[in-house]
């Protein structure tokens, strides 16, 4: 076995954003399913939340390769 521990660390740190993305879209889907007319209100919030969670995941990815 060879490799770097950075990637193990990245794997661990990717759990957080993965759960976050799942929760954001679970809430978004159930919100739209209950009230379809609320979709245009919920959509930007869901996308921004997704962007923030995804940014953390990508930050970890870049740092895993750079550090």
């Amino acid at each position, binding site marked *: 076995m060879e490799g770097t521990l950075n990637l193990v660390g990245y794997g661990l740190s990717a759990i957080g954003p993965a759960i976050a993305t799942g929760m954001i879209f679970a809430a978004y889907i159930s919100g739209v399913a209950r009230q379809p007319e609320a979709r245009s209100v919920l959509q930007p919030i869901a996308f921004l939340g997704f*962007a923030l969670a995804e940014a953390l995941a990508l930050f970890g990815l870049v*740092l895993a390769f750079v550090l």
Partner: protein
Amino acid sequence: MAMKDEGNALWSIFGYLLSGMLFWGGVGYGLDKWLNQGYFLLIGLLLGIGAAIYLVWLRFGRD
């Protein structure tokens, strides 16, 4: 129609974040190599993330 909007938006968001981080992080990495410093990379990455999230807000966040 519904699938189209959301699928498109999600892939675009991913692309913006990735390219923001790659471009400004790359600039910071280059400055680090050039000036023998250690902090430009971090500044570049944070700047890239900030700009990319701002771009996402411009495209998908505002009404």
